[in-house]
């Protein structure tokens, strides 16, 4: 028997007339990072709560580690680490005390738990702050403590709800690296939800676009991008030459449109091409005597996707709220 980490079939949650999650089919394997992407209010958190047995489903099937979370919540929660959106800790306790309490909830043996707490605090860079009360922590520190808190039980599945929402860009990169490492090095199944597609797409093996309770697209980032009507590829090019000449040279290439000149570094241009034309681009620029020092495909191939689903849905939500 092969156990999938997470599998749902037709998972549905209704609150009265409102359907928060509508017939969700989802499968996440071990060692895989799955990104549940969608605008706010799409039903991501509701889905996660159903997977943990914290909310009853209205219809459909859910299996976590081969178990029904509604019927075996303890076994499921023992092995699933959950980092909630805007994670909270007891402000009157120190970071270490908070982790200790989680260890106790998970019935970890005291000495093993202490060693693990030290190790995790170090790995999230909170060793110095470990014995300060959490009310003195910044949001980013809380988020990092949250990650340590999730890992203390050595989970086989990690579910992260908007993990990058509260932290600065550098912190996001570190966090994403840790998450990726969990899946690759330790075979953990990771389900993360986010409304910030560009931030998380690069660490997700597969993503699902979740809008208004429905999964509208699912697959690898490349698959999804391929399905888009526009195959536009965004590239950042750094050229150490005369700006006007560079602009002219770039614009002269067929199928390429200059989108933007960086305000931070005027030598860096963003261009949109109808496909991945990086090699060709470098060749043309060099041939014209323009020294290229950087060519970088920007990870927003799903830009069109984002526009199509997220902004549209958010616009409608705003429209609904106004009306």
């Amino acid at each position, binding site marked *: 028997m092969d156990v999938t980490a997470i599998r749902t079939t037709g998972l549905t949650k209704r609150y009265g007339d409102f359907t928060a999650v509508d017939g969700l089919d989802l499968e996440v394997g071990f060692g895989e990072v799955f990104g549940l992407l969608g605008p706010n209010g799409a039903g991501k958190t509701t889905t996660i709560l159903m997977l943990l047995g914290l909310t009853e489903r209205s219809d459909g099937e859910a299996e976590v580690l081969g178990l029904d979370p509604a019927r075996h919540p303890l076994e499921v929660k023992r092995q699933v680490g959950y980092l909630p959106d805007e994670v*909270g800790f007891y402000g009157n306790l120190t970071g270490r005390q908070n982790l200790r309490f989680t260890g106790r909830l998970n*019935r970890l043996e005291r000495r093993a738990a202490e060693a693990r707490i030290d190790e995790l605090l170090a790995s999230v860079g909170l060793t110095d702050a470990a014995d300060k009360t959490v009310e003195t922590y910044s949001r980013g520190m809380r988020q990092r403590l949250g990650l340590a808190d999730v890992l203390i039980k*050595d989970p086989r599945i990690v579910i992260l709800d908007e993990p990058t929402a509260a932290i600065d860009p550098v912190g996001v990169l570190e966090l994403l690296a840790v998450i990726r490492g969990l899946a690759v090095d330790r075979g953990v199944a990771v389900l993360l939800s986010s409304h910030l597609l560009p931030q998380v797409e690069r660490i997700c093996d597969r993503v699902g676009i979740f809008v208004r309770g429905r999964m509208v697209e699912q697959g690898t980032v490349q698959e999804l991008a391929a399905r888009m009507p526009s195959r536009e590829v965004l590239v950042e090019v750094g050229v150490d030459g005369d700006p006007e000449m560079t602009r002219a040279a770039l614009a002269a290439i067929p199928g390429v449109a200059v989108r933007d000149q960086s305000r931070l570094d005027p030598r860096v241009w963003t261009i949109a091409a109808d496909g991945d034309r990086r090699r060709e681009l470098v060749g043309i620029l060099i041939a014209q005597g323009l020294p290229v020092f950087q060519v970088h495909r920007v990870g927003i191939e799903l830009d069109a996707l984002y526009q199509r689903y997220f902004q549209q849905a958010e616009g409608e939500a705003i429209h609904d709220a106004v009306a």
Partner: protein
Amino acid sequence: MTPSPEATSGTGALVGAVALPSIPSGGGWRIIAAKEMSDHLNGVRFLLLTIGLGLAAVASVAAASGGIRDVAPAASGAPAIFLKLFTISSDNLPALVDWIAFLGPLLGIAFGFDAVNNERTERTLPRLLSGPIWRDDVINGKFAGALAAIALILAVVVVVVAGVGIVQLGVVPQPEDILRLLAWYGVAVVYIGFWLALATLCSVFLRRAAGSALAALSVWLIAAAFSSFLVGSVADVLAPLPADATFEQQLANATMRQDLSHLFPGNIFADSAQAILDPSVRTTGLVISTQVDRAVPSVLSFDQSLLVVWPQVVGLIALTVVCFGAAYVGFMRQEVRA
């Protein structure tokens, strides 16, 4: 039920720095209760309430011991003189049992008003519930932990009072006195438990701690200040008392008042405290003069006293259970995130 080892070994080898202990399906409430209690014991609240109640207790004992000494010659040979420490009031200070009847609610409310809503404002509830515990472990554990902290405060106060009494008066408690004291202690914990349950109920339904505290305190104030007024007016409607009332009508009215007043935990507690601590109290109900005509004044044994207060104690437990039950059901039905 967990997946079979064959099914998990493929990935289990990768994630296994700490051995997975088997999860007992019960006992989560104990972990939460232990945390709650340690939070309370380390908190300012506990310190303030212990000091406040301790001062009140010592003051009333000092007054009471003076009172006992005054009546001592006449009272020598009186039953259960040790317990008088707890029940005698002086001119300006109430007796210790009355202090507890009055301040007990405050104790219960102080330890319960932010039990659940604090988890919500701190956003710790989803994280807490994602641990391998049942949902009711949270509310059970919180109640148990707070009640244990309250029982500890009360025990400290009682022991201090008893100690002061023994030293000051040289009265040594008889075994029966100790039994009576323990029985009273048990009833007091249930009584304060009622207010704790009420405060917990408020904390489940009112999202802000301040609102919850105010709601619980107003119930207390209404019960304390208006109970006799409410009881009187309702009784006069249900069992009218005309100007030329017959004896039966008067009796009916008085009985009705008595029954209605036992809907209030404060009254139940005060009555049972008297009957438990004072062996000469033979009933908490009405006594008509013909019933005591030519009765020989005597004292009740401990078990007889218990029999007298048993209905009251059961009523008090029932009130507490109803209140906690409502909080429990409310908490179980709420969404984790709200």
